[in-house]
């Protein structure tokens, strides 16, 4: 029966080529627009570290000064060196890491190779295990290395490729700020989006090329980029001093259970209270402990433009569907005579209804396929757009299935009303008019 309906649908599409083309084209445009924006939305709102995101937490303490303080506001964005060092020393979580970033020239002893300006993260030992960094060669450093300002470094596979031609470079030396650092680990290509552990380098930045111990970075004075907030009077030192009133350090902890998270939050409040009692903190205790997805949400990582585009595309699809309902209805009623004959020859209302729904579904299927082509074109445009997430816009299997599903659903929905009207056609009146 279905085959027969499909044949009828194909014949009817051929009979009114113009109208069918218009419907398919409009539907495909709507589907293409929706899929393009939905894919971007899907990619950008994804979980950067799915198997751990609920167990990794960003820490915020309010270390700011009383000047300009408003109750109820978010605490200082980052941590000061003093506070992160203290938290790290206390080791209250399963794993913890303090970190910040910058950009630095990385060279090798060979004078013929020009130094390469590379993004850098200076952090503490737990960083790699906590964020599941994938190793190609070697591994990370130890807490003792952090303590001892060890001259060690971990590099990305991309930097390893540029400097050493991709060979196992563990044990080799690189030059940073004129000082030699020994490579102890090379990472595999490490892909995660957004750049969740430090959003101040651009929400969709790639993983860094160079990693070194925080303590070593401070000795080498590697500099800093990203966010830095300072308050109060300076004491003539630099923002990187242990007692500087400047926040520029991201602090992350790994906590396995909600109980551990609650206990850690209590610990942060106790820490803040103690700092206020000691005269360091001026504001009331105000701590935040957010897991990865809560953190990304609070920082509004998904660009507002992307959400607007998605709404716009769905608005467009809605108009396309309404348009399709109208045109299908016109097409159906134009064939009232044919329906009358079929009904008179014994077709039930149900059969007529099914026939027209199948016809709408066929148009939907063609629209979906064409929409897929449009979506590919749309994503190509996005990839060549100037946004920082441009390179991420790729259609995946889930989105592919969603495209087909959405198109079929939209066209079947559009087909319901016309099919119902067709089923209501009374044979006698039609035959009389004929």
């Amino acid at each position, binding site marked *: 029966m279905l085959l027969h309906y499909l044949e009828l649908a194909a014949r009817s599409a051929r009979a009114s080529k113009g109208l069918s083309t218009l419907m398919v084209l409009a539907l495909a445009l709507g589907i293409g*627009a929706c899929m393009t924006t939905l894919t971007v939305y899907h990619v950008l709102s994804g979980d950067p570290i799915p198997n751990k995101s609920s167990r990794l937490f960003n820490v915020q303490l309010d270390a700011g000064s009383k000047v300009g303080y408003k109750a109820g506001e978010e605490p200082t964005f980052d941590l000061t060196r003093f506070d992160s060092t203290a938290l790290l020393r206390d080791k209250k979580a399963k794993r913890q890491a303090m970190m910040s970033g910058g950009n630095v020239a990385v060279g090798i002893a060979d004078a013929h190779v020009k130094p390469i300006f590379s993004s850098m993260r200076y952090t503490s030992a737990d960083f790699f295990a906590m964020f599941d960094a994938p190793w190609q060669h070697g591994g990370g450093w130890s807490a003792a290395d952090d303590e001892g300002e060890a001259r060690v470094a971990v590099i990305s596979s991309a930097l390893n490729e540029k400097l050493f031609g991709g060979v196992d470079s563990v044990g080799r030396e690189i030059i940073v700020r004129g000082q030699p650092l020994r490579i102890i680990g090379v990472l595999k290509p490490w892909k995660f989006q957004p750049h969740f552990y430090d959003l101040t380098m651009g929400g969709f930045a790639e993983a860094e090329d160079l990693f070194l111990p925080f303590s070593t970075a401070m000795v080498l004075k590697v500099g800093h980029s990203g966010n830095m907030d300072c308050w109060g009077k300076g004491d003539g030192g630099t923002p990187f001093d242990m007692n500087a009133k400047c926040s520029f350090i991201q602090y992350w902890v790994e906590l396995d259970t909600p109980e551990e998270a609650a206990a850690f939050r209590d610990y942060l409040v106790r820490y803040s209270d103690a700092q206020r009692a000691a005269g360091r903190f001026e504001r009331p205790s105000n701590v935040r402990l957010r897991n990865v997805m809560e953190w990304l949400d609070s920082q509004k990582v998904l660009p507002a433009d992307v959400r607007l585009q998605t709404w716009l595309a769905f608005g467009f699809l809605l108009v396309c569907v309404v348009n399709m309902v109208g045109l299908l209805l016109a097409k159906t009623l134009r064939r009232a005579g044919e329906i009358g004959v079929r009904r008179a020859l014994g077709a039930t209302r149900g059969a007529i209804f099914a026939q027209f729904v199948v016809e709408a579904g066929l148009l939907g299927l063609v629209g979906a396929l064409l929409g897929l082509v449009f979506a590919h074109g749309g994503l190509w445009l996005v990839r060549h757009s100037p946004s920082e997430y441009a390179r991420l816009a790729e259609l995946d299997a889930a989105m592919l299935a969603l495209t087909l599903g959405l198109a079929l659903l939209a066209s079947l929905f559009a087909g319901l009303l016309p099919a119902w009207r067709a089923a209501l056609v009374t044979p006698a009146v039609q035959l009389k008019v004929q």
Partner: protein
Amino acid sequence: MSSSLASQALGSAPSRSGLLATLHVGLLDLRPILSTLRRHRIAAGLIVLEVALTCTIVTNALHMIQTRVDFLNASSGLAEPEIVMLEVRGSKAVPPERAAGIASADLALLRALPGVKAATKANQLVYYDNSSNSNVSQQPDDQGLRVTVSQYLADEQMLPTLGLKLIEGRNFTANEILDSNKVFSEPDPHIGQIIINKTLADKFFPGSSALGRTIYVFGSSPATVVGIVETLTHPYLHRAQSEGGYAMMLPVRGGGVYLVRTDPAQREALIKVATAALEAVDATRVVTRARTLTEMRDAFYAQDRAMAWLMAGVCVALLLVTAMGIVGLASFWVQQRTRMIGTRRALGATQGQILSYFQIENLLLTTTGIAIGLAGAMGLSHLLMQSYELPRLPWVYLPISAVALWLLGQVAVWVPARRAARLAPVAALRG
């Protein structure tokens, strides 16, 4: 079934000529049209719904496009087509006490190059990815009126290099320029002179001249206002509005990028020469970025421009789809009413009368759609204001999109309506 009913509705009207007559006939036609539409409630409702949705979306999209275009046209106040930026980085650590000396030497080098009108070093620049801000207050130690101000560290060459105009006072002199390493290693940095923009001057000293007055940038040491510039913006132009647009220049030489002003035609050549000259100073140096300010502006606004084009594209597509829907349904109606059109024409109705019948019918439908759509547009604008911090929809967009949709409807219906009007009475009756 519908054809027999509609033929009553299309009963002939007395034949007259001229615009007035058409209007008159139009009004007489209104009642039959309404009764026809009542019998095609679903199809008519779909057209109305489609027009309403399109109207709602297009009105707000037009407004969003205009908002982006306003961004694109925002003025930085700088001599943009003449400025080139060079970012220099070294792979060896430079002792901080030597930084200012190196900067002075580099600037002397740049100023000696052919075609260079002026050169300076700046800690931040509009369209560049860096921004430095300080709290400035009217009284010492953060007391009194206090605002966040975009902070430019400048030498006496910054005004001529950027092409900024003083509206009051004077520029810094060469011997007023301080070494940033010395200034900021003090617990309470002392800045003697300061140049502020008009926005900050008006905020702190409304109604009187800011010249010669003191403000406090770092803690307790006062800075005297020696000059006021007309336009000096926050480096992130879009933030200039949300944060008040306050900016100042401090007479301090420190880190940052080199800026060179030259003739627009010589920019590319100068970039090559300047890059070679700066890299020749020291083998460990690399010019990591060298751009014209025009290129930087384009890159800075690329996202807004892309968004404006996208919105425009969706608007055009929406209008096309809506037009398609109107053509499709109107064609269907024409076909369905062939018999009545023939009857009417046989009874003496002119082609114009048939044409205006369909045009008025379309006008009724689009007007209903537009009325609903405009209400929807205001509602959507309200939602967008809450969720996306967009400005309120100005009323002027309402008539614009109303007229656009009316025109669209008339153009779209004209094709099938003309076909209807041209039907020969005999052929129509026979069909």
